[in-house]
């Protein structure tokens, strides 16, 4: 086992306190100075019977992705967690309750399901919990204590986190939980001794100072709030709901307004209305909601009104698998809606970018007077990382609107044809700039028009404007060691991390592999992308959808057929799957 990079899973039902234990673990490990990336998976039904798994990876550098295998499995419920054993790394550590309350039928213990290489650590979790706290439910804390003991960590990173977690429940509850944690810790130390497994490398103290442990959703909400968002309209849908719920709480505290709407059409409608009236406004949804918004987004394109829409993708089509991840709304985001409707589509690739790109999206929407769709996915929305987010700044809050000049008063042309394609925009309330906007094709002063000339000119203006936005969009980022490459990977969104880790591993092996991360989906940096393609013998585009939606969009830029790695497992893509494919391709090239 690598002592400075471990992946831990906790598995049980939600009744077992699985998710809570994962949360405590991540928080404490972050305090201890580790870099954290973590992601929970749970069933889409409400009641507490289904399997919950929290997966966390701890290391010293910023974590790009999960490792393919699990180094430590903490079982809170063997009947659930035995299904996780196929994912165990060699010589993995398995921590389980060796004295469960009920008699377990033969083969029911996880011990019966692991390979001979596994390091089994039985700890009487429930017993310890009952002894120390008289609450069976505390077994998750006993398990955390055991984990800390095994890996030689300092329990003092954990105790304040536990205290904090239960602070609203009163001193007694806190004490009980600390007691159970300590019981797990001491019992394990006593039974297995100090060096039961290779200790974890102790990271530099205070390494994570200033960093916060946040999910993609929380980072999006924080970014929007820091950017001075004024209006949020939304309708719940997994996995975007938490953004709405944070807004419901936080936005009014900052002087903004939150309104739950009756559906997604109403949400985007109100965003358009609010932006039209000059305020910074946004909404968040998932694929089914985005589909419903398509007509209104096209209105935003035609009337040139800002709007920011987060599409937190989930497995589709249709209702699909609401709690699983997928990158399959790219087509709908770029192409949905009637007619030629150019809009901006961008995709952050990690939690930090969730923050940065929402700020960017709000500003781009204003400057370019356009709907901006920010594509995230379940994996990115829900995963937590400990990251250093930028301070809230006046730059983020900057009003990016381009207003008309006072000289235009009384003779204002809202849709004036300009070089940039941007026409200075007045907002209601401004005197002397009264104008009309319409989803009908229109003259430069916003009146309906149906002549060939005007329609061609206005179509051209709208497209030119969006193409110009390329200058302000995050550029592709390349990770190559050489100029000429055997294979170039191109990736986007939440798959970038795994692809990058795969690329770095391949490069370490001396393979001529490079990678290009594409954050601007539409418009895209075609020169930059085809430059990269030209330097690669083969191009591979790994993504979490069935048909290769990014490949469909940019594939024509390559002189050859681009290769695809498409997965729709509902799970994040694995580093090993990418590496295997990379090696396959290189084997063919070099033979």
């Amino acid at each position: 086992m690598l002592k400075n990079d471990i992946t831990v899973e906790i598995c049980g039902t939600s009744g077992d306190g699985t998710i809570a234990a994962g949360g405590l673990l991540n928080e404490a490990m972050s305090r201890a100075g580790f870099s954290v990336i973590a992601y929970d998976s749970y069933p889409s039904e409400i009641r507490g019977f289904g399997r919950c798994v929290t997966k966390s990876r701890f290391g010293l550098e910023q974590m790009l992705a999960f490792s393919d295998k699990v180094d430590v499995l903490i079982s809170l419920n063997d009947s659930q967690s035995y299904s996780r054993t196929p994912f165990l790394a060699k010589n993995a550590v398995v921590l389980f309750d060796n004295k469960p309350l009920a008699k377990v039928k033969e083969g029911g213990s996880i011990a019966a399901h692991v390979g001979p290489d596994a390091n089994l650590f039985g700890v009487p979790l429930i017993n310890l919990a009952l002894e120390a706290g008289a609450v069976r439910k505390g077994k998750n804390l006993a398990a955390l204590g055991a984990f800390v003991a095994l890996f030689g960590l300092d329990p003092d990173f954990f105790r304040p986190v536990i205290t904090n977690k239960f602070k609203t429940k009163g001193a007694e509850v806190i004490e009980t939980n600390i007691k159970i944690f300590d019981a797990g810790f001491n019992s394990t130390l006593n039974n297995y001794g100090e060096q039961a497994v290779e200790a974890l490398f102790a990271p530099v103290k205070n390494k994570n100072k200033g960093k916060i442990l946040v999910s993609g959703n929380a980072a999006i909400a924080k970014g929007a709030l820091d950017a001075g968002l004024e209006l949020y309209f939304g309708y719940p849908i997994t996995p975007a709901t938490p953004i709405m719920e944070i807004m419901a709480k936080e936005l009014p505290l900052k002087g903004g307004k939150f309104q739950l709407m009756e559906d997604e059409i109403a949400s985007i409608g109100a965003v358009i209305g609010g932006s039209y009236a000059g305020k910074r406004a946004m909404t968040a949804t998932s694929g089914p909601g985005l589909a419903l918004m398509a007509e209104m987004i096209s209105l935003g394109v035609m009337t040139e009104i800002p709007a920011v829409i987060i599409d937190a993708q989930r497995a589709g089509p249709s209702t699909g698998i609401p709690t699983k991840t997928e990158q399959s709304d790219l087509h709908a985001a770029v192409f949905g809606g009637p007619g030629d409707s150019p809009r901006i589509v961008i995709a952050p690739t990690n939690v930090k970018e969730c923050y940065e790109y929402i700020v960017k999206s709000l500003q781009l929407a204003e400057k370019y007077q356009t709907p901006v769709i920010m594509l995230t996915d379940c994996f990115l929305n829900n995963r937590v990382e400990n990251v250093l987010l930028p301070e809230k700044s006046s730059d983020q809050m900057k009003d990016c609107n381009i207003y008309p000049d006072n000289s235009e008063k009384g003779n204002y042309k809202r849709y004036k044809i300009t070089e940039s394609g941007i026409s200075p925009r007045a907002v209601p309330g401004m005197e002397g700039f009264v104008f009309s906007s319409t989803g009908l094709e229109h003259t430069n002063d916003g009146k309906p028009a149906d002549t060939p000339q005007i329609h061609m000119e206005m179509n051209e203006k709208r497209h030119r404007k969006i193409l110009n936005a390329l200058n302000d969009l995050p550029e592709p980022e390349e990770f190559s060691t050489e100029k000429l490459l055997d294979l170039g990977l191109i990736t986007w969104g939440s798959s970038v991390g795994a692809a990058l880790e795969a690329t770095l591993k391949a490069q370490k092996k001396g393979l001529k592999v490079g990678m290009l991360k594409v954050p601007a989906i539409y418009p895209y940096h075609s020169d930059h992308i085809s430059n990269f393609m030209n330097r690669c013998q083969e191009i591979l585009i790994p993504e979490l959808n069935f048909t290769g939606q990014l490949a469909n969009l940019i594939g024509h830029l390559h002189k050859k057929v681009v290769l695809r790695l498409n997965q729709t497992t509902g799970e994040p893509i694995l580093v090993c799957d990418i590496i295997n494919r990379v090696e396959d391709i290189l084997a063919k090239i070099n033979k």
Partner: protein
Amino acid sequence: MKTSGKALAEKVKQIKESDMLSIRSESLPTWCPGCGYFGIQQGLNNAIQQLGLSHHKIVNVTGIGCAGRYAFFNDAYGLHVVHGRLLPVATGVKMANPELTVFAVGGDGDGLAIGAGHLPHMVRRNVNVNYMLFDNSTFGLTKGQISPTSPIGTVSKASPSGNVDTPLNATLMALSYGATFVARLYAGDPKHNTAIIKEGIKHEGFSIFHFYSSCVTFDKVYKTWNNLKDNVHPLPPTYDHANLKHAIDHVLEDDFSMGIIYKND
């Protein structure tokens, strides 16, 4: 039938000069001559004028249909949206800037067919928007199909053997959703309407004005001027518009009384 360029310019000039109508934009309405909407617009213009609202502080969010073209015929900010969604958009506008006077203007097809899901929620939010529902019981712009308020038996190209679907009553619907200002008005009576529109604009909260109008081009049989004129009448003198139960009972019995049906400040 065609108005010459010069006559038109003259007309615009007259309109501009008459103080009463200064809200009208330089684009003259493209509604058919005789369309009921002219009368509605007149009442609205009067009210705006009399209240002395600044034009640049007015926003007309309008739907799709002949009614929705209203956005172009006013010297005010106009936002002509997609079919059926004027109320959510108007919500956004008003929440963004409460100093604006916001009108939502659209037809019966726009508001009661495709847009029917937004009215109850607009009422619930009670955002201070004035909804002008132009009800001519037809889809005018798409050439005269039956709408959700067409009487049973209405013959149209979408109902060649006569409409069989029960018509909706927008006034009753608004009441059942809990609306706090509900007026029913006749397009042909701008004078009477002016005062009521003023009262509705001043009402703090959502106001709905259900206008009975006539589509002279596609409806020669049902909601014609003559039929409307013959049927509309004022609310009874004893009418108490502060009493919801009373209002609903009345509306269940009388389809053609015009005035403030319900008001709750």
